[in-house]
């Protein structure tokens, strides 16, 4: 694989998608645990964390997603044709679920009145969203889209009866809950909230198992669904091995109640290796077997100007993001609730 504009483009987009998956997982999972806590009468622990951590950043989280799909259409305009036509239903549903989450932040936390039903919807949307969004990855494996009269058509029956679909859905759900629980364990620990730390640590350990089992299962299922992709995954075995080792590291630290911060960084590493390993093995296809990076790529002038805009944008964003994180995430007084804020 040589480095060319196509590769630079997809690396940028894949990185933003990775950022979105991590941050959104924390967000989705927290909403679910919160709703679950309300039903088991332990809500106060999580509600506080959600209000202090998630409310200031949810719009930023959302921008990662917008960035990904706008960048995708920019770098690979043909994806608008193939995915735009086939994804109308799942992505529309995802947008509506995102709408429910956004309105929860707007109306409940800013409006400062909590309603059980709304918290429940908010929690549920956190589970349905990864399911709706992960369908995109399933479809990209091929076998569900056929060309009819020159237009791509999605075969819903094949999609919903495929074991691959459901394993990816289960993986996305358990990964969301696992990522979220590990992060929140660390955050609660930093806030010196021992009962919350214990509770979230238990959630993290519970969800670690289905995450790793389904991840392995999906690789196995790809053998029959998409042999070409399967072969490429095997050739990248070392990336998935590192990922697995990092996973064991996280679980071990959680088990021993030690270094939650390190545990979370190992988790980032675990998902990074798996996610990029998956991405590289997917190369060069964006949609098996219809669309590759190369036949969907934009013209050179647009690609160069997008990359320049991207670098200029990053120069602006990275210092700003650093400021945001320093003020909210890594500010001890803010995290533990000593320093007060508006609302």
């Amino acid at each position, binding site marked *: 694989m040589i480095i060319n504009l196509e590769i630079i483009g997809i690396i940028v987009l894949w990185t933003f998608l990775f950022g979105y998956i991590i941050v959104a997982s924390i967000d989705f999972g927290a909403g679910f645990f919160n709703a679950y806590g309300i039903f088991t009468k332990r809500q106060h622990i999580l509600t506080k964390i959600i209000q202090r951590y998630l409310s*200031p*950043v949810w*719009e*930023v989280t*959302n*921008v990662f*997603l*917008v*960035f990904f*799909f*706008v960048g995708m*259409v*920019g*770098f690979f*305009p043909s994806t*608008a*044709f193939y*995915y*735009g*036509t*086939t*994804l*109308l*239903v799942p*992505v*529309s*549903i995802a*947008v*509506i679920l995102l*709408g*429910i989450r*956004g*309105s929860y*932040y*707007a*109306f409940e936390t*800013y409006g400062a*009145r909590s309603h059980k039903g709304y918290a429940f919807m908010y929690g549920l949307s956190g589970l349905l969203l990864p399911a709706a969004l992960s369908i995109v990855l399933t479809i990209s494996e091929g076998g569900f889209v056929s060309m009819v009269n*020159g*237009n791509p058509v999605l075969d819903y029956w094949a999609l919903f009866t495929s074991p691959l679909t459901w394993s990816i859905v289960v993986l996305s759900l358990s990964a969301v809950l696992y990522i979220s629980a590990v992060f929140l364990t660390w955050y609660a620990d930093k806030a010196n909230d021992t009962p919350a730390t214990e509770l979230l640590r238990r959630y993290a350990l519970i969800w670690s198992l289905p995450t790793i089992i389904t991840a392995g299962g999906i690789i196995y299922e790809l053998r029959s669904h998409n042999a070409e992709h399967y072969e490429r995954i095997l050739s990248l075995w070392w990336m998935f091995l590192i990922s697995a080792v990092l996973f064991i590291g996280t679980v071990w630290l959680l088990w021993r109640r030690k270094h939650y911060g390190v545990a979370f960084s190992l988790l980032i590493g675990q998902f990074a290796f798996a996610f990029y390993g998956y991405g590289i093995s997917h190369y060069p296809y964006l949609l098996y077997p219809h669309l590759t990076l190369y036949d969907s790529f*934009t*013209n050179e*002038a*647009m690609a160069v*100007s*997008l990359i320049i*805009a*991207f670098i200029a*944008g990053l120069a*602006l*964003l990275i210092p*700003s*993001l650093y*400021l*945001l994180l320093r003020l*909210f995430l890594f500010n001890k007084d803010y995290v533990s609730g000593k*320093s007060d*804020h*508006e*609302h």
Partner: protein
Amino acid sequence: MINEEAVYYSRILTETTLSFHIIYATLGVGVPLMIMIAHWVGIKKNDEHYILLARRWTRGFIITVAVGVVTGTAIGLQLSLLWPNFMELAGNVIALPLFMETFAFFFEAIFLGIYLYTWDRFENQRKHLLLLIPVAIGASFSAVFITIVNAFMNAPQGFDLVNGELVNVNPIKAMFNPAMPTKVSHVVGTAYMTSAFVLASIAAFRLLKGSNHIYHKKALFLTMKVGLIFSITSLIVGDLSGKYLAEYQPEKLAAAEWHFETSENAELILFGIMNEEEEIKYALKIPYALSILAHGSPTAEVIGLDQFAEEDRPPLYIHYLFNIMVGIGMLMIVVSLLYIFSRARGWTFTETKPYRWLIVLGGPLAIIAIEAGWWLAEVGRQPWILRGIMRTAEGATTSNDVDLMLLLFCGLYLILGIGSVVVLSRMFRRNPVERELMERKGDVQT
């Protein structure tokens, strides 16, 4: 292969999303500027009222911005979901400003989060005000970049089509298309104007409903001043837009003005009703005015609809939209000008109940003008999605599920619309200005 039903529902869904989104987007662009002005005046005059004004506006603003984020994400995705063929073509040429818009919004969202949660965390108020600058810049630039994309749809350039293949793409030339200067300044200017009049409307409403606090009077005066400035700039830019249309999209101007025959010394038709035989009744005809609007000269020739084939003409009902937009714009200039003038002269009729009700009405009217303006812009471009290059029907999806999605999204917008109104009114009713001022005075003394 065109799926007529999909085209029809795609148009309705896009119209619905845009009509709903534009309310929140307009406020999202304009209100940060108003907050900044109030905050700055407050620091400058050392006046607690203006500072509180900025705080309370900010609290309302985050609700509208949150809804704007949701609907903005929806329209962003719907562009690809409902118009995949269009986006495939447009993505090759006009993706750059779309991409930059995400950055502008990113920038805004980060600093809005910081500004919001750091009231009272700075010893020096000026430092806190500094945080607002990126919010206001990010908000306005989001509008600039998105409007550039819309301008491109009206006046596409920066590429060549050779046998259906795109060649010689120049993203910068595509961005700086002929429609861009007037469109961008009109959209940004009217966003400031509308936001000012919406906030003025709230202040006037409070004054009518019992509270005679000086706080509301200061708010009203400030917002009316800003509203006047930007309604005048919008008028000037509106005139320039007419000249742009006459040059580059004559069919749009002709349809909006019911100008059928190409002619010199063209008269401007204001108001009026058209029956099914295309006869115009009850119209006000101003001689030479269309020639002046189109070319700045009373004798200039203005191209009429006769120069265009039937299937290339926009629908004629855009004339009504044009009248609504211009009528409300003019009314708001008069209302705000009279208000400012009578304040300077010490006249009191602008302090009377009927006049305040007029100002209250100004908020919703300004929003209606924004809606009419966008419908005019979009319907007036028909039958094209990319003028002269791609027809709307060719750009649409072929999926059969658009009608169902339309229902789902209508439900979402209904919840968001009702929710934001309920939450906003509850938020301010529960915490009236008088009480908050009293609490804050206690703060200041200790």
